[in-house]
């Protein structure tokens, strides 16, 4: 069992890093040692964010819920559709939006975490990746209350429309933690990329709001993954959230398990995002204190 002393040695030597990356093992150990800081920062930021809002955290659920209803009106009522299909569409829209918003919040809050954490960065030496990591934890905390809301809508919907194809309890729901971990890791990895870009180009965050909106339209949130057939399904797997949103739809809407390609896609994008984002961020984080001062 490693000791605190091992993680934070009394004698520290600061030397130029000849390679682009600092020594990774001490970095990861220090990251792990200070994980409580990231957890508490997420908790406190979450508390601060809704301190002045009368409805408080209700907005976390209300916002995607209202958006889901608007999209439902656009997609179902204008297009026309039966009650049963309507419920399936609504459920698909809601769980897709909730999951997409989880990833989006990871990325947008993470992208701002370095520039808004300026004074902390100027004053303390710690692995900077803790800041976007904290944003990812906060996004997860904000995502969690949407699950019981979704389940409530599901249960009420099934009561009124028992013939709906949306499933009741199934053991395939055990895939959900796997999907959420993959979405969280993909979001965190991409947040590392955008947080770095935001240090160098301060309009990155503005651009992100457009990117994420277009990204949502290109993802299986407003449309079912089965819409893409044949070679065009490749587009689904080229999208970092495509496999995870397909998996979300498979499990929540059809009650099915995940097949190999979807599992591979989820893991692939989570690993690739962390590797690319981690390299891009860590190799440049020594520059942050200069760029934001």
């Amino acid at each position, binding site marked *: 069992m490693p000791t605190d002393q091992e993680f934070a040695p009394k004698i520290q030597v600061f*030397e130029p890093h000849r390679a682009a990356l600092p020594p990774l093992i001490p970095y990861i150990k220090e990251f792990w040692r200070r994980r409580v800081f990231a957890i508490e920062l997420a908790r406190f930021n979450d508390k601060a964010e809704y301190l002045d809002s009368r409805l408080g955290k209700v907005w976390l659920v209300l916002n995607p819920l209202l958006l889901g209803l608007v999209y439902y009106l656009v997609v179902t009522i204008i297009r026309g559709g039966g009650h049963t299909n309507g419920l399936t569409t609504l459920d698909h829209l809601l769980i897709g939006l909730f999951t997409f918003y989880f990833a989006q919040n990871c990325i947008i809050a993470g992208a701002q975490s370095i520039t808004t954490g300026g*004074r902390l960065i100027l004053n303390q030496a710690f692995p900077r990746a803790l800041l976007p990591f904290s944003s990812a934890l906060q996004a997860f905390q904000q995502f969690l209350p949407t699950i019981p809301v979704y389940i409530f809508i599901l249960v009420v919907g099934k009561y009124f429309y028992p013939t709906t194809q949306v499933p009741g309890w199934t053991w395939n729901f055990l895939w959900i933690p796997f999907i959420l971990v993959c979405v969280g890791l993909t979001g965190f990895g991409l947040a590392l990329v955008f947080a770095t870009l935001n240090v160098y180009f301060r309009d990155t965050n503005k651009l992100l709001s457009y990117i994420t909106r277009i990204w949502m339209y290109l993802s299986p949130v407003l449309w079912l993954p089965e819409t893409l057939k044949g070679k065009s399904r490749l587009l689904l797997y080229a999208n970092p959230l495509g496999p995870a949103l397909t998996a979300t739809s498979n499990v929540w809407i059809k009650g099915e398990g995940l097949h190999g390609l979807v599992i591979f896609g989820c893991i692939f994008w989570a690993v690739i995002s962390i590797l690319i984002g981690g390299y891009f961020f860590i190799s440049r984080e020594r520059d942050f204190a200069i760029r934001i001062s």
Partner: protein
Amino acid sequence: MPEELAVKIEELSITYKVNLEAKRTLKNAVMRASLGQQMRVRTVEAVKNLTIDIPHGSVIGIIGSNGAGKSTLLRCIAGILSPTEGRVIVNGKISTLLALGVGFNPALSGRDNIILGGLASGLTKDQIESKTDEISEFAALPEGFIDMPVRTYSSGMYGRLSFSVAVSMTPDILLLDEALSAGDAAFKEKSFERMRELCEEARTILIVSHALATVTDLCDTALWMHKGSMVAKGKPEQIVDDYLKFLNVGSLPSNLEDM
């Protein structure tokens, strides 16, 4: 590294590039790239070939005009900036106050901010929670303010709280940048007292200050830096005197307050 040394700096140079573009935006970067233009950058040699040994228990005052490299040097000792050349060896736990109000989220209470500041500096949650009342008392916050949002604090209260967090971490090495300008005369005296206590416990303090009176009152050694290089090091009175001569101003009380 000899045991009696708190910090050993060997041939340290810190160089970085500063972006001179008025707007650091992606839009400008794309426009520049499309026109085949390079980004305008300036290379800053913030610290040049500095070698110095700092024994445990010393109080070092670093003086020099703006752009001398004082803050950059402290940030390098804290591990916030990396050396470009040479190396820094630090023997002991560091606490820093290099930017006022560090780690503070103005929407959160003073208590919450103390916990965040402590966790960021590497303390455990239990350690920092046990110090919260002591920090609040030292910062002399009016009753009840510790649980009020920091945005309701006056600038003096804000500064006092930042300083209190930094000195309460029981550091082996304390790095302060202009921190003593926080608070009124009574708090300044209390800060001096606290720092003297730290010195008696053989802890090391490095202060960057434009208040030369602080350097002569508190420090046992002064380090004068100019444009990244060390000009002189020695007894504070002598170094301050030389510095004032260099600036071509007399040692009037007003000059000693803020140079």
